[in-house]
C-alpha cells in the first residue's frame, strides 16, 4: 500500500520576491522556450581548412549518429581555417544531455580528445564576474509574529465576515454599536474562508490554490499552496498539516497514475506537499470528506477502506506497521479527542450481531468490544475530553421499523470501560455533550408525532465515577432542532432553524433555568465565540437570499441582543478560535477561584474606557456641531444678500417670496400676542 513520496519540489511557490499578493489570481505563466539547452559545444576538434571541412563534418555526424542532429556549425576565421570547435543543435534537451554524457572524452585520435559541453555551461561561465565577491551575510530576521491577536489588552475576540466580494476581520467590542474593523480586503477567497483550529491561519481559496492569511494587523499572506482548482481544505487538529482536495489532479510529472494526486497533504510550517492521495467516493459518486480523520496529537491519520481502517503516520507519511485495523465492514469510525483510540461500529451481518469496538493505535489492541442487537443505525459522539463516548443506536423491532433509540454511554477513563444504557422511545433529532463537562442534551420527539409541536429537550448528567447517570430536566414543547453548547460548558442555546423560523432559547443547564428567549428570523447558523461570552446568529446568502434578512446578530450568553448588522450578500461569520490554554491545571483552578477579583478589575477598566470613549465622542461631536453651525451662519448671511439681489431685479418686481411671507407671519403673531383679553375680540371685529 505504501507509495513513495512524489517529486514535486518544483511546485513550491517562491514567495520571497513575489511582486503582489494577488499574483496567484492571474493566469499561470506560459513557459516560453528560452536559453540554449538543446545546443552542445564540441571542443578540441582539429582546426581544418576549407578543403577538409566537409570531411570533418562527416566525421562529426558519424560520432553523433545516435542523436537527432538538427544542425552543425563550425565557425571559421578569416583565413578559412576553423577554430577547432563546433556547435551542434539537437532536437531536444534530453538528447543534448545524453550527448554530453556519452560523447565527452571521445578520442578522435592520439592528439584530439573531444570535450563536449552544454552551451548553457559556457553561457554561465561567461556571465561570471572575474572579481571575487564575498557572500553577503544576511542578518537573521525573526519570522512574523502570528499570535499578536492573543495579546489584546482588552481580551476581546475577533471574527471574520464574508459578504459580497469582501472579507472583513473585526474585533467585537461589547460596548460599541459597530464592530471595530481590523481590515477589509477583497479577494481573500473566491468561495469561503476557514480558520485553522488554533486560529493562527485563515485559509482562503483562489483559482490557483490555497492562501493562508495571518500575522499581525496587516493580514499579509503567510503561505501560498499551489493546488489548481482547489475546492475544500481541512486542517489537522493542531494545525500542523493541511489537507486539500481538487477535482483536477495535481500536475505532477511522475509516471504513476494520476488518480493519486487529487488530495494533497501539506506541511503548514514549510508549505510543502508531504504526500498526495487518491480521493474516495461513496456509492453515489460523492466525495467523502473529510478525506482523513486525524488523531488528537496529529501523529496518525486514517481513512476507511473496504477492508478496514488504513492508518498513516505523520512522521513518515507511510502506513503504520501492519497497515492499520483490518476489520471488514466497518461503517464508521472516530478518533478519541484525547487518546489514540479509535472507536468504530460494524453493522449486523447475517447472524453476527452489530459491534462497537474500541481499538488502541498503533498497537491495534482492542480495548473494548460490545455486541448490540437489532441495530439499524449508529452514531458515535465523543465528549471533548475523551472521558465519555456515546453511541446513539437506532433500534428496530422484528418488522424492521424503528422502535426506540438507545444511548450506550461508555466511561472511557474507568477500568473495563463500563457502559450505561439510556433508552428513549422517541426519535432523536440532536445529541450534544457539554464541552469538557459531564452533561449532555438530547432533542427528541415521539415517533408518532408528525408535527414539531411535541419536541422536547432533555438534559442528563453522567455524574462522577461509579455513579449512574441521572436526568436533570426535560423541557417540553420546545421549538428546537439543534443544540449549541457554550465552549466553556454550562450554557446552551436551543435553536429552532428551518421550519421553526429561527427561534432561540438561552438556557442555563446548571440552574436548570431559561435565561432568555429570542428569535432571529430565517437564521441558519449559530456560532459561539471561543470564550463563551458571545454567540452570533447569521442569515447566510447561501441559505436564504433576501436583502432584508441577510446579516448577523450577536447575543451575549444570557440572550441579550447586543448588535444587529444587515448586509447584502452576507455569507459567513466565524469567530477566531483560540489555542488551548498552556497554563497548568492548578493555575487555572486558582484563576477560577479568584474570578470575582478579576471581574472587578475588568469592570473598572471597562468603565474607564467607556468614560473616555464617551468623552472623546462628545468632544468630536461638539467640534463637528460647532463647525457646522458656523458654516451655516455664514451661509445664511450670504443667502440673505443673494436673495435681496434676486428680489431687486426689475423683472422680478411684484413676485411673492416665501421668506417674506414668513417674516410677515412672525410679525403678525407678535402683534397679536401684545393684545390681551377683550382687546382680542375688538381686534378680530376690526378685521
Amino acid at each position: 500500500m505504501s507509495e513513495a513520496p512524489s517529486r514535486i519540489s518544483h511546485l513550491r511557490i517562491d514567495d520571497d520576491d513575489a511582486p503582489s499578493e494577488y499574483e496567484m489570481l492571474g493566469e499561470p505563466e506560459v513557459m516560453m522556450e528560452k536559453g540554449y539547452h538543446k545546443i552542445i559545444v564540441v571542443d578540441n576538434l582539429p582546426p581544418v581548412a576549407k578543403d577538409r571541412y566537409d570531411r570533418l563534418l562527416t566525421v562529426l555526424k558519424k560520432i553523433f549518429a545516435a542523436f537527432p542532429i538538427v544542425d552543425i556549425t563550425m565557425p571559421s576565421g578569416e583565413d578559412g581555417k576553423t577554430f577547432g570547435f563546433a556547435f551542434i543543435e539537437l532536437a531536444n534537451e534530453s538528447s543534448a544531455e545524453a550527448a554530453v554524457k556519452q560523447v565527452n572524452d571521445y578520442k578522435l585520435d592520439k592528439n584530439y580528445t573531444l570535450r563536449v559541453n552544454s552551451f548553457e555551461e559556457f553561457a554561465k561561465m561567461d556571465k561570471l564576474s572575474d572579481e571575487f565577491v564575498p557572500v553577503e551575510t544576511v542578518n537573521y530576521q525573526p519570522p512574523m509574529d502570528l499570535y499578536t491577536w492573543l495579546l489584546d489588552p482588552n481580551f476581546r475576540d475577533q471574527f471574520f465576515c464574508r459578504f459580497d466580494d469582501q472579507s472583513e476581520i473585526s474585533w467585537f467590542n461589547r460596548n460599541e454599536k459597530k464592530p471595530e474593523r481590523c481590515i477589509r480586503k477583497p479577494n481573500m477567497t473566491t468561495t469561503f474562508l476557514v480558520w485553522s483550529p488554533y486560529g493562527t491561519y485563515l485559509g482562503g481559496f483562489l483559482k490557483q490554490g490555497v492562501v493562508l492569511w495571518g500575522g499581525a494587523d496587516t493580514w499579509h499572506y503567510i503561505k501560498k499552496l499551489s493546488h489548481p482548482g482547489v475546492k475544500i481544505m481541512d486542517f489537522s487538529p493542531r494545525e500542523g498539516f493541511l489537507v486539500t482536495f481538487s477535482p483536477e489532479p495535481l500536475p505532477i510529472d511522475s509516471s504513476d497514475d494520476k488518480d493519486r494526486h487529487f488530495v494533497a497533504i501539506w506541511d503548514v510550517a514549510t508549505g510543502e506537499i508531504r504526500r498526495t492521495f487518491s480521493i474516495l467516493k461513496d456509492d453515489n459518486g460523492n466525495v467523502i470528506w473529510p478525506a482523513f480523520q486525524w488523531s488528537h496529537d496529529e501523529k496518525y491519520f486514517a481513512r476507511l477502506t473496504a477492508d478496514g481502517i488504513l492508518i498513516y503516520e505523520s512522521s513518515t507519511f507511510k502506513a503504520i506497521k501492519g497497515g492499520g485495523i483490518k476489520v471488514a465492514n466497518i461503517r464508521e469510525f472516530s478518533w478519541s479527542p484525547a487518546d489514540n483510540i479509535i472507536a468504530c461500529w460494524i453493522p449486523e451481518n447475517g447472524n453476527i450481531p452489530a459491534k462497537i469496538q474500541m481499538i488502541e493505535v498503533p498497537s491495534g489492541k482492542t480495548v473494548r468490544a460490545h455486541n448490540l442487537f437489532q441495530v439499524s443505525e449508529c452514531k458515535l459522539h465523543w465528549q471533548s475530553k475523551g472521558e465519555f463516548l456515546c453511541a446513539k443506536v437506532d433500534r428496530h423491532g422484528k418488522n424492521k421499523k424503528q422502535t426506540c433509540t438507545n444511548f450506550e454511554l461508555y466511561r472511557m477513563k474507568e477500568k473495563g470501560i463500563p457502559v450505561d444504557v439510556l433508552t428513549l422511545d422517541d426519535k432523536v433529532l440532536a445529541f450534544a455533550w457539554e464541552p469538557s463537562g459531564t452533561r449532555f442534551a438530547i432533542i427528541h420527539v415521539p415517533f408518532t408525532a408528525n408535527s414539531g409541536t411535541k419536541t422536547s429537550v432533555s438534559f442528563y448528567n453522567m455524574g462522577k465515577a461509579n455513579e449512574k447517570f441521572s436526568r436533570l430536566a426535560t423541557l417540553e414543547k420546545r421549538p428546537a432542532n439543534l443544540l449549541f453548547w457554550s465552549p466553556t460548558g454550562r450554557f446552551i442555546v436551543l435553536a429552532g432553524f428551518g421550519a421553526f423560523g429561527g427561534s432561540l432559547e438561552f438556557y442555563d443547564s446548571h440552574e436548570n433555568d431559561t435565561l432568555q428567549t429570542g428569535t432571529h428570523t430565517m437564521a441558519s447558523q449559530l456560532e459561539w465565540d471561543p470564550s463563551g461570552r458571545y454567540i452570533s446568529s447569521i442569515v447566510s446568502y447561501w441559505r436564504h437570499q433576501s436583502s432584508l434578512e441577510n446579516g448577523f446578530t450577536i447575543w451575549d450568553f444570557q440572550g441579550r441582543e447586543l448588535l444587529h448588522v444587515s448586509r447584502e450578500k452576507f455569507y459567513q461569520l466565524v469567530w477566531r478560535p483560540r489555542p488551548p490554554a498552556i497554563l497548568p491545571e492548578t493555575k487555572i483552578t486558582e484563576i477560577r477561584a479568584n474570578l470575582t477579583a478579576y471581574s472587578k478589575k475588568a469592570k473598572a477598566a471597562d468603565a474607564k474606557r467607556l468614560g473616555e470613549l464617551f468623552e472623546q465622542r462628545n468632544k468630536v461631536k461638539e467640534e463637528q456641531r460647532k463647525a457646522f453651525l458656523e458654516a451655516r451662519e455664514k451661509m445664511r448671511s450670504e443667502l440673505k444678500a443673494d436673495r435681496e439681489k434676486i428680489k431687486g431685479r426689475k423683472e422680478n418686481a411684484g413676485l411673492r417670496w416665501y421668506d417674506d411671507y414668513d417674516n410677515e407671519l412672525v410679525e403678525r403673531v407678535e402683534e397679536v400676542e401684545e393684545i390681551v383679553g377683550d382687546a382680542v375680540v375688538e381686534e378680530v371685529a376690526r378685521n
Partner: protein
Amino acid sequence: MSAKGKKGGAAKNKNNNNKKPNPNTNNNEKKQQNEKKNEKTNNAVEKKDNQNKNNNNINDNNNNNNAEGGANNERREKQKKQKPKKLQTQLTVQRNLTIRPIVLSGHERPVTQTKFNNDSDLLFTASKDGTVSVWYTDNGERLGSYQGKGAVSSIDITTDSELLLMGATDEVNLWRVSNGDLLYTWKIPGRIVSVELNYGNNQFLVGFNVGTAQNPRIYVYNLSHTQPGLQPKQTAQEIILKVEGSLSKCAWGYMNENIISVTSKGGLYVHDLNGNLVREPIHDHTRNINNIAFSHDRLYFLTCSDDNTARLYNAKTFTLLRTYETHYPVLSGAFSKDLDHIITSGGLPADVTTTSGGDLGQFATRFFSLMDEGELASIRAHFGPVNSVAFSPNGKIFSSGGEEGVARLYHLPEDYFKGALEEAAEVDLAAELALQL
C-alpha cells in the same frame, strides 16, 4: 346639500373646541382666515359635488371612518406604550412623547407625495389614484380634491396658496386652490417625475422620462400669476439631461441658479439652465436615489436612496456633510425647521416584504439628529412602504404618506421643541452604559 352644510358646521365646531397647543388656533386672526378659507373651499367642494356626487358620498363615509380609525390607532399606540420592552436598542416616539396622529384615508391607491402650503394650514396629498386631496392640518378635515388625468407623481403649491401645480402622467395641471378651477394644462411628451416652482414662483420645472428610461428631460415654463387661466403661449425651455439611467427626481438648486437631478443609477447631477453640467456628477449612493428634500432655508438638501442611506449635502458647494444609515431603503426625507433633526421614511417594496419575515420596523418614520447622524426616535404606523414625509413650513406638523393609500398627520407636542428626543437619547445612552457596568 344638507349633508354638506352639516359637515361644514361640524368642522367649525371642532375648530372651536380644539384646545391643543397649535399656532393656528392660538392665533385668532389666523383662525379667522382659516374659517374664511373654510367657506371658500366648501364652495369648491360643492362645485365638485355637482360633478361627481357619488364619489363624494363615499368620501364622506371615509371621513367618518377616519375619526374612529384615528381613535383606534391612539388606543393601539397606548397599548404599545404599556407593553414592557426588552433591551431597548432604539427609542420610539411613543415612549417619550405622546404624539397625536390624524389618519387621512381618502385615497384608493398609494400616496406619492404629501406637501404643506406655506401657511401650514393645508396639507395636499397626491396619489396614484389620480387625485390630489386637500386637508385642514388642524383637524384632518378634507376640503376637497382635484381630479387629474392619471397617477399624480408630483405637486407644488405657490407661496400664496393660490395655485396648485399637479404633475399627472403626461400632463401638468394648474388649479386654483380655493375653488377647484382647472386653469391651464401643459402637455408633456413623457412620464413626469417632478414638478417644482422656483424661488419667487415665476417659473417652474417639469422633469420627465421619455420612453424607455433614456434621455430624461426637464422643461422650464414661465408662470403668470396675474392671469393664471391665460398662461403665455410659450414653448418650454428644454434641458436635455446628461445623465446615466432614468430620472428619479429633480429640483431647483441654490437661488434658481441650477437644477439638481438624481437618477436610478444613484448619480447626482447639477445642470445649469442651458443644459450644461455645472460640476462632476456625484456618485456617493450606490443604488437608485428616490428623492431629494431641501431644508427650510434651501441651503442643504438630503438625498434618499435604496442603498439604505440618506445623505446630507451643502446645496451651494455640493459637499457631502452627513450620512444617515437605516436598515431599509429610504424613500423620502424632510428637515425639521426649529430643531436640527431630519426625518426619513421608506421600506422595501411589497413584493420583497411578503416573501420574507414580517418586520414592520422597516416602515417606520425615523428621526435623526442632523449633526450626529444618530437615530433619535422612530414611529411605526404605516403597514406599507412610506413614500413621502414632509415637514410643515412653520415646523409644528409633519406628515407621511404610505403605499397603502393612507396619509398621516402628526402635530408635534411642546415637549418635542424642548428637546425631549435628545433627552430621551441621553437617558438611553446612560441606561446602556449602566447595563454594561
